[in-house]
């Protein structure tokens, strides 16, 4: 370049730039930079600006060689702002250097962008929970949360992503990232012949698995288990998982890692259900067809989930089909259900309705006169997606059970659940997701005896906000808070005839304030989780409560005014560390502290609920606590698609509650004086082998576990085996697609019999033979064994037909095994072999030991159909 040219450029720079700049500084409002173009090549844009405003640009023309025409409309009052906006339009860097604007290409690769959005079922629009979204080359990935939301940080430029979810076709996505991207990913399900079978197995990388965090009970697997009376029950399904023990046949109770019956909580769409059973446990109010995911936390429980010592089962219900209307029904001689899914606004809003009703009367009419069993439940779910950032869900669940026993007691038992939740999801930005939930739950239990009506009720309302914050691909955190109010009426008795006065049991009101924080750091083979849950639990007046002395006699009566009269503060730390040795094996160590503030006081060991009394922690009942240590190992065999998981645990429980011997629990205002407090210890080993893909699926589980309780005033202070101390527990669930339209399922379980106290002697009293016991739980019931079987035949030949129907034949306890849940020593048998307690105390008729069992060889047949219309 000649000196003259340089001087000329320099002169032009001084003359053009500085005067303009000076003009801008001295009188910026008057100078206006305005440029507008439609489909103009970038080079031409720059030439126009040079002509119009005498702005000098320096650049390599190759930058714009393959660029598309741009569209722009820029109006600014200053040159600097104008240049900034111009850079955005042209997607280049522009820097002022020595009187010129130097233009260079933007390098996206050294910048990071957020790729976020939702993963959904392409057919139904349902959010997919736990889908894997990963960067194929970088090997970083995340899981979609319980609402299908994900957030992944990626370097700018071209990226190749893979999205996968079991039962769905993998999808690869190519992105050219120059800014944050929000996207809804639609996955198509695998071609299926039957709902619960995946024809094409997928290879799985164990690092991508969340398998050690929780147990998952797939609703389709649950549906595939042999039915009892037309339905696969949730509790029966839970018992097919490792480490979850049954109480006995037809019981809603289950035990997890040494916990008591009330140490488990079932949450449906963030709403607690206090009694999920129908018909004393034979069925549950949870519909497999209504459920999207069923997760069980036995340890390493997230701090945002809840307050129970043993397990929390969180169930997410389906949102309803966003694309087509579906009517389905199940018809069975004992139980019938109808469900409807309809999109109320296509691709935005859907409705799910289900009603189920029992039909036992024709069966009971053959038995003792006037006995009656009936239950029904209703499910409602509605959701509306306002826009990609905002979604609203409403869930309502109602259930009712009624049992009338008229042959000798004239008792009428009724229990009802009513639960509802309103949830609002909001995406603040690509990294922050919020779920706000308002829920109510009511459980009412009523016993009618002639003109007397006894009622116990527990209600709660709560508001909770949980924030999911995806800081980076390696680091995410969850935090938030919740407030609960509990309204507890432990027992009221009314008499319609206005007869004798009954003792009053005061209502209890409690409040819970919780704050939680949890962070998850996962990098390559290491995953670290740490969290803290803080709970403030308070008892609110007005109320009357009693204090007791060391002999459990009433020491004082306290009448409280409105406001808080007692409170507890508790901190629950949780920590776990997980390390993957390679793509097929990983290990996890976990520690957690847990508290429980609501307890079910049951002085009954029968399989059925018995006048449920829920009591909150208060002046006489400290919160129960547990410390659990666990270690787990998982190994995946890719070729066979088999998972092996084994765990060992030790759990120490304090402030455990039991009743004194022969406690008076009914209508007793001094019931807290009947309670005794102690400790429990549990330890065990669990292992499972699972195969969840392919035409043959199933799982084998084995658990060895022990539980011991000790109370100063029970069993003379010596430790004794707990009721749920059943050392050996084995189960096998096998599901097999025998033919294109034939699906076979079987389930076998074996458990050591429960401990019970058998007499070591007797003494007479007024003609009775009163048992004498030695050590508590000195004996065991016979071992429990059961084999169930079912066969399902798809009746329509075309699996994609709009109308689909099937026939399922099941046999519960196909081998007819008698599994006694009690052994008694107080009955006589008369000439007709009726087994009864004696009444004539003068007769020297011999008492006979008897055993009581419940269900033996129970066949059922169900017809199911589904009709869908787009």
């Amino acid at each position, binding site marked *: 370049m000649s000196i003259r040219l340089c001087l000329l450029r320099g002169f032009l720079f001084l003359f053009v730039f500085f005067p303009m700049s000076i003009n801008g500084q001295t009188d910026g409002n008057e100078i206006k930079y305005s440029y507008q173009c439609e489909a103009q090549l970038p080079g031409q844009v720059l030439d126009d600006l040079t002509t119009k405003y005498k702005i000098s640009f320096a650049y390599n023309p190759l930058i714009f060689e393959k660029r598309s025409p741009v569209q722009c409309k820029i109006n600014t009052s200053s040159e600097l702002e104008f240049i900034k906006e111009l850079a955005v339009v042209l997607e280049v860097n522009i820097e002022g250097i020595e009187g010129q604007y130097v233009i260079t290409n933007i390098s996206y690769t050294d910048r990071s962008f957020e790729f976020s959005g939702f993963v959904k079922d392409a057919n139904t629009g349902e959010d997919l929970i736990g889908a894997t979204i990963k960067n194929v080359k970088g090997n970083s990935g995340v899981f979609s949360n319980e609402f299908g939301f994900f957030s992944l940080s990626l370097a700018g430029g071209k990226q190749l992503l893979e999205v996968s979810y079991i039962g769905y076709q993998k999808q690869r996505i190519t992105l050219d990232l120059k800014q944050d991207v929000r996207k809804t990913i639609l996955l198509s399900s695998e071609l299926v012949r039957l709902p619960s079978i995946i024809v094409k197995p997928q290879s799985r990388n164990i690092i991508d698995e969340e398998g050690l965090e929780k147990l998952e009970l797939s609703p389709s697997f649950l549906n595939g288990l042999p039915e009892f009376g037309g339905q696969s029950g949730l509790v029966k399904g839970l018992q097919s998982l490792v480490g979850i023990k049954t109480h006995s046949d037809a019981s809603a109770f289950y035990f997890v890692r040494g916990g008591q019956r009330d140490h488990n909580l079932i949450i449906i769409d963030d709403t607690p259900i206090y009694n999920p059973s129908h018909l004393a446990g034979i069925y549950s109010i949870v519909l497999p067809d209504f459920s999207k995911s069923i997760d069980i936390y036995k340890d390493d429980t997230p701090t945002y989930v809840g307050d129970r010592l043993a397990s929390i089962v969180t169930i997410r219900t389906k949102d309803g089909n966003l694309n087509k209307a579906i009517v389905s029904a199940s018809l069975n001689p004992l139980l019938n259900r109808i469900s409807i899914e309809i999109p109320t606004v296509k691709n935005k809003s859907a409705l799910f309705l289900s009603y189920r009703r029992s039909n036992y009367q024709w*069966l009971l009419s053959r*038995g003792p006169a006037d006995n009656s069993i009936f239950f029904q439940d209703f499910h409602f779910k509605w959701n509306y997606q306002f826009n990609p950032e905002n979604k609203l869900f409403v869930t309502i669940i109602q259930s009712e059970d009624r049992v009338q*026993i008229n*042959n*000798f*007691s004239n*008792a009428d038992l009724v229990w009802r659940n009513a639960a509802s939740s309103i949830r609002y999801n909001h995406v603040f930005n690509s990294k922050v997701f919020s779920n706000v939930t308002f829920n109510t739950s009511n459980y009412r239990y009523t016993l009618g005896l002639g003109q007397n009506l006894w009622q116990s009720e527990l209600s709660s309302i709560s508001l909770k906000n949980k924030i999911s914050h995806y800081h980076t691909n390696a680091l995410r955190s969850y935090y938030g808070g919740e407030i609960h109010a509990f309204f507890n009426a432990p027992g009221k008795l009314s008499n319609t005839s206005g007869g*004798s006065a009954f*003792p009053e049991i005061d209502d209890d009101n409690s409040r819970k304030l919780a704050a939680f924080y949890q962070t998850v750091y996962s990098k390559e083979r290491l995953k670290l989780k740490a969290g803290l849950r803080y709970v403030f639990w308070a008892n609110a007046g007005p109320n009357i409560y009693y204090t007791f002395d060391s002999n459990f006699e009433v020491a004082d009566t306290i009448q409280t005014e409105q406001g808080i009269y007692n409170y507890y503060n508790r901190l629950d730390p949780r920590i776990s560390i997980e390390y993957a040795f390679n793509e097929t094996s990983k290990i996890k160590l976990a520690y957690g502290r847990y508290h429980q503030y609501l307890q079910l006081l049951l*002085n*009954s*060991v*029968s399989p059925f609920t*018995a*006048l449920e009394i829920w009591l909150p922690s208060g002046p006489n009942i400290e919160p129960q606590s547990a410390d659990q240590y666990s270690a787990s190992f998982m190994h995946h065999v890719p070729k066979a698609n088999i998972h092996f998981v084994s765990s060992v645990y030790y759990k120490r429980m304090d402030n455990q509650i039991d009743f004194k*011997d*022969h*406690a*008076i*629990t*009914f209508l007793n205002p001094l019931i807290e004086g009947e309670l005794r407090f102690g400790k429990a210890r549990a330890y065990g080993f669990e292992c499972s082998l699972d195969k969840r893909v392919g035409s043959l699926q199933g799982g084998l589980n084995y658990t060895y576990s022990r539980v011991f309780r000790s109370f100063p005033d029970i069993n003379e202070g010596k430790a004794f085996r707990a009721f749920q101390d059943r050392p050996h527990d084995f189960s096998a669930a096998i599901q097999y697609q025998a033919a294109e339209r034939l699906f076979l399922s079987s389930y076998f379980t074996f458990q050591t019999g429960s401990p019970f*106290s058998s*007499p*070591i*002697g*007797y*003494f*007479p*009293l*007024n003609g*009775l*033979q*009163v*048992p*004498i*016991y*030695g050590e508590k739980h000195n004996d065991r019931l016979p071992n429990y064994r059961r084999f169930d079987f079912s066969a399902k035949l798809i009746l329509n030949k075309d699996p994609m037909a709009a109308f689909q129907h099937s026939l399922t034949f099941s046999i519960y306890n196909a081998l007819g095994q*008698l599994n006694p849940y*009690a*052994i*008694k*020593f*107080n009955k*006589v048998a008369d000439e007709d072999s009726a*087994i*009864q*307690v*004696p*009444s*004539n*105390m*003068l*007769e020297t008729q011999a*008492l006979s*030991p*008897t*055993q*009581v069992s*419940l269900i033996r060889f*129970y066949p059922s047949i169900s017809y199911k159909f589904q009709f869908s219309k787009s």
Partner: protein
Amino acid sequence: MLIACEERIIWTDSPTQIDGINIQAQIHANSHYGNQIFVNQVSESLNGPFEPISDAVISVWDAFGEIEGIYNETTGSYFLESNIMDSDTITLSVRIDDQQFESQAIKATVRPLETIRIDTIGNTDSVRIARLDDGFDPQQNAMYKLSVAYDAPFDSLDAIYYYYIFNTLDINQILRPPQEPSIIPFGSRIVIEKYGISENHANYLRSALVETNWNGNIFYSANANVEGNIDGAFGYFSYSEMLRDTILIE
């Protein structure tokens, strides 16, 4: 298939050896009638035998002095040689070899006799005793003993029925198992005795019923020993007022 199935089983008694004494002494203050005390060995087997102990030295002290218990071979029990005189508190002493058992009891009052409902049984010549007052009365604890003789001259008894009234409700009591019906033929004579029961004695009887006649329905409590008030022995020593009546079934 759905309803609970109960069946008899063969049970092997516990190998644990137990050596215990049972003393049942329900003493009443009705001066017209005698008092009976049972002392026997406990049994390791269901259905006994509950061997009576015939060489115990039994004394009851009331406000007026000591009353000895005399063993009766026929009944296998002890009868007090005289009736209890007007006392509020009495004391029991039982000595068997080198073992000494003592207890004290305060008199429990009794409310008037309730009307006992008798129901005929269809077209038969028998009746049935309906449950007395459904077993719950917040104002009292009481025990009814109905001694039935079917045929004149009513020298021997054919049946004894016990009914209990408690001022508390127990879940086992509400949903108790089926019981044999009390079938009494026409022409029978029923001697009705009503005993007042103290709170502690009611607790003892209720616990015993939880372990026996109230046990075995769909709801039942955890098993536990029944605690009496005689240190070192099973059984109970009680003292109460007693009312008595006699009816004929015609």
